[in-house]
């Protein structure tokens, strides 16, 4: 070890890998976060990539980043600002200036900080640090590209292939900074490139060279030690929100004894769900790509009609295309899960960025009175539970369920304890042969408690029936345009959804129960809002926090909880959609609002500032 290096023990640290979108920063980041998770750190990660697949090299628009937040205690967000920045070119440095703290360690590749590189990033001088006003950072300047070329000479790779390993050199340096043992990373590279042994060896060499370089230069920078935290015993894996959503759907289908059918169409940032489920053939999942968004949902509805758990995955623009078909599932009363991974809008908007702007579309974006269940996942790992709940409510209450996640939690990942499905609730499909009423069975006979109709699956003898988009008679299930019947059916479909409040958990209040201020959030902002609450408590403030997973129906105790606090602030990444909804559902409620629509996650520091102001007002 370098003797002069001082080791700082921290409980949380943020590392940002940044470079050209072709520089492999996502891979460096992923390996580093997995290594840390295996060592017992809490992790939360977030990739930040441009909408273009390959923007012009070295330019500001082509910068791709991957941020990892490690901690020895609960880490819920990828962090506001970086303690360590890897900047593979001047553009990456410039784009990330706003994410640096005083004293941040900045690792740069001096080979790509030449005059032409500085020009591409629109620097005016030859000192980018001075030009950006970065006087208080610790710079580790290494000729990464040339050292990689030299180190890999023995492999006989062409120049381009050799240089491609520079992300591993950078990773090696970061591993040295954090005292990460190399074995884990080497193992991961061997797996990743198992079919290309030369590439695997070259990457491993670059990684080790990077580590040794850090060790040998006696760099005058701090190295960090993050203590490991005591996790709940069990087997863990690394999971992002889209994977967790896919697994949640598989779990729901398994629990219900149903086949899972996903009909989908590629759309950023939801495509991973289609890709994951199309690969799970060994589990008998039919995850299939169709000709458009409408076909995606329509095949899923057809599969549900035929007795499978039908699901579809999309993002905002796709949800708009699916709305007529969701209405069909509402009136046909078929189970259906629609996953909307929200992104920046309107229209094509910001496809790779995150927002919470589809809430009202999910709640109301259909013709006619067409209530559906709306659930929102709060963290990458919570996507599993939320998807499981979506499947359970869809099947047991014969209704479409819209599950809202967002680009931020869909791509963000953290360590996840592999769940014990035996501890998850049962899912019991209400098959038509369970009907025990006095009148003869009809397609729209209902369970007295849930008001759900029964599921008659083709092939069941004695239950052949016709359903469809036309209004049906409450008693006979035949087509009906009778005015009183329509009123009754509209009321019944609404009451069926309202009754689901009896089958979901109550709203929980975290923090100080007797606080004056209650922070209210929903969906993917959980981590930032929770950390804001924690930070306020550390500052000696009394504050409470309630986060909604169930949006429609709301938990039964919603009004009671919200009315308990003198001040309520609803924080969300839109112009106030949930606040508007709450006002319509809780008489007399008039909450404060904190709204940001930048396509970026909340900044915890900013939340604390605003909430503290509110508290003290």
């Amino acid at each position: 070890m370098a003797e002069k290096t001082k080791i700082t023990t921290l409980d949380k640290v943020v590392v940002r890998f940044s470079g050209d979108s072709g520089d492999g920063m996502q891979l460096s980041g992923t390996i580093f976060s997995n290594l840390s998770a295996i060592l017992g750190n809490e992790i939360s990660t977030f990739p930040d990539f441009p909408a273009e697949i390959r923007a012009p090299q070295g330019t500001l628009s082509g910068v791709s980043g991957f941020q990892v937040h490690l901690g020895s205690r609960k880490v819920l967000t990828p962090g506001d600002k970086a303690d360590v920045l890897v900047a593979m070119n001047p553009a990456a440095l410039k784009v990330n200036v706003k994410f640096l703290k005083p004293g941040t360690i900045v690792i740069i590749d001096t080979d790509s900080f030449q005059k032409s590189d500085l020009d591409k990033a629109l620097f005016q001088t030859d000192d980018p640090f001075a030009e950006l006003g970065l006087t208080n950072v610790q710079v580790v300047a290494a000729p990464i590209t040339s050292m990689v070329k030299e180190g890999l000479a023995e492999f006989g790779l062409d120049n381009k292939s050799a240089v491609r390993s520079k992300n591993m050199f950078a990773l090696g340096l970061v591993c040295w900074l954090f005292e990460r043992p190399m074995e884990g990373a080497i193992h991961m590279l061997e797996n990743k490139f198992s079919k290309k042994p030369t590439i695997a060896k070259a990457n491993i060499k670059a990684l080790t060279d990077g580590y040794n370089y850090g060790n040998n230069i006696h760099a005058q920078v701090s190295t960090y030690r993050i203590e490991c935290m005591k996790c709940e015993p069990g087997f863990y894996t690394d999971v992002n929100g889209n994977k967790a959503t896919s697994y949640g759907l598989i779990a729901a289908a398994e629990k219900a004894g149903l086949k899972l059918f996903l009909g989908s169409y590629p759309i950023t940032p939801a495509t991973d769900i289609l890709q994951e489920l199309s690969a799970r053939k060994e589990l008998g999942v039919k995850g299939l790509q169709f000709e458009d968004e409408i076909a995606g949902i329509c095949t899923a509805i057809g599969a549900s009609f035929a007795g499978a758990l039908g699901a579809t995955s999309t993002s905002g623009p796709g949800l708009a295309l699916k709305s007529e078909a969701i209405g069909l599932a509402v009136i046909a009363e078929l189970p259906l899960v629609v996953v909307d991974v929200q992104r920046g809008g309107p229209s094509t908007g910001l496809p790779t960025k995150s927002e919470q702007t589809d809430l009202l579309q999910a709640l109301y974006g259909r013709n006619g009175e067409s209530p559906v269940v709306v659930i929102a996942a709060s963290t990458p790992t919570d996507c599993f539970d939320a998807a499981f709940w979506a499947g359970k409510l869809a099947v047991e209450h014969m209704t479409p369920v819209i599950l809202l996640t967002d680009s931020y939690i869909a791509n963000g990942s953290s360590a996840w304890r592999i769940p014990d499905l035996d501890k998850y609730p049962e899912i019991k499909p209400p098959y038509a042969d369970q009907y025990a009423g006095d009148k003869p069975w009809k397609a729209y006979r209902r369970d007295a408690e849930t008001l759900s109709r029964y599921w008659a699956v083709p092939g069941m003898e004695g239950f052949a029936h016709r359903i469809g988009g036309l209004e049906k008679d409450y008693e006979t299930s035949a087509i009906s345009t009778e005015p009183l019947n329509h009123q009754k059916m509209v009321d019944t479909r609404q009451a069926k959804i309202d009754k689901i409040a009896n089958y979901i958990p109550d709203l929980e209040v975290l923090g100080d129960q007797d606080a004056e201020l209650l922070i209210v959030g929903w969906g993917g902002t959980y981590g930032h809002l929770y950390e804001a609450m924690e930070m306020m408590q550390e500052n000696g403030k009394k504050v409470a926090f309630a986060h909604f997973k169930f949006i429609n129906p709301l938990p039964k105790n919603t009004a009671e909880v919200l009315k308990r606090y003198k001040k309520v602030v609803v924080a969300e990444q839109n112009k106030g959609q949930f606040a508007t909804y709450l006002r319509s559902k809780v008489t007399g409620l008039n909450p404060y609002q904190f709204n940001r629509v930048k396509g970026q996650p909340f900044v915890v520091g900013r939340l604390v500032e605003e909430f503290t102001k509110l508290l003290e007002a």
Partner: protein
Amino acid sequence: MEEAIKYVAKDYKNDQSVRWCPGCGDHAVLNSIHKAMAELGVCPHDIAVISGIGCSSRLPYYMNSYGFHTIHGRAAAIATGVKTARPDLNVWVMTGDGDCLAIGGNHFIHAIRRNVDLNIVLFNNKIYGLTKGQYSPTSDRGVVTKSSPYGTVEEPFIPAELTMGARGNFFARLIDVDLKNTAEVLTLAAKHKGASVVEVLVNCVIFNDGIHKYLSDKANRAERTIFLRHGEKMLFGNNNEKGIVLDGLKLKAVTIGEDGYTLDDILVHDAHEKDMTLHMMLGLMGGDMPVALGVIRDVEAESYDQAVENQIKEVQAKNPVRTLNEYLMSGEIWEVKG
């Protein structure tokens, strides 16, 4: 051994009163579908009839099977989901020229391209009936309707051409009044594994009365149409005195005994030929040539729903993992001990 149940047409009817206009061509087709199902011998509860929106899409309500009357244009997509989730079911799509070829055109061509094992019955009356008389994608160029008061300025689709253009493997054409042949062709369509399209030229007695009269009229039908059967000579005419021959790269209608043509010159219909060139030419006949009816193309190929099943079986044969837990535990994991 259990004796197979023998079904009759009325086993597929239900007690709903049929609400099409008196004289509508759809009535006859409905009866033929009941007959075809009895002929197939599939029990009613193993049949799913899916439809979109339009007059003909009301048909599922008049069946004693499972039925789903869905939304405009989406029947092929919904039926694709039904059949792919449950390849064991016998799945039918009832659709019209507007539903199938305008708003639903995309799903239609993709269902055909994938070769989903669906029996698609396309009721073609060349008009929008349920919305009271607007032109459809099969309306002839220039036709005056409520939404084309000065005549349309667009070319129609020819369903046979579109089906084969989408690489379809089964196409048949029928006339609503030709009861003798309808049930037979529908039965062949249902037996075909893969997407089968049966275009039925139906009359809309209210908004487009007589649109197919030129062909359906009993006095002229034998002269203006030709009914094709696999393996038989392509003959037509009141006394089967005419036939189709290949003249260079084109088809030609000839009279046997005239211009030196003999019976030997007449083409034999091969519906099973993979190369669709001749089928396409037959499907496009009209004008001076008789319009082809019957099964024009019937080629076997693996169906999509079966291919999906087969792929799952292949993967499962190599991979013993069957539950989510087994899958997750076989991935990159680490243990935290208590």
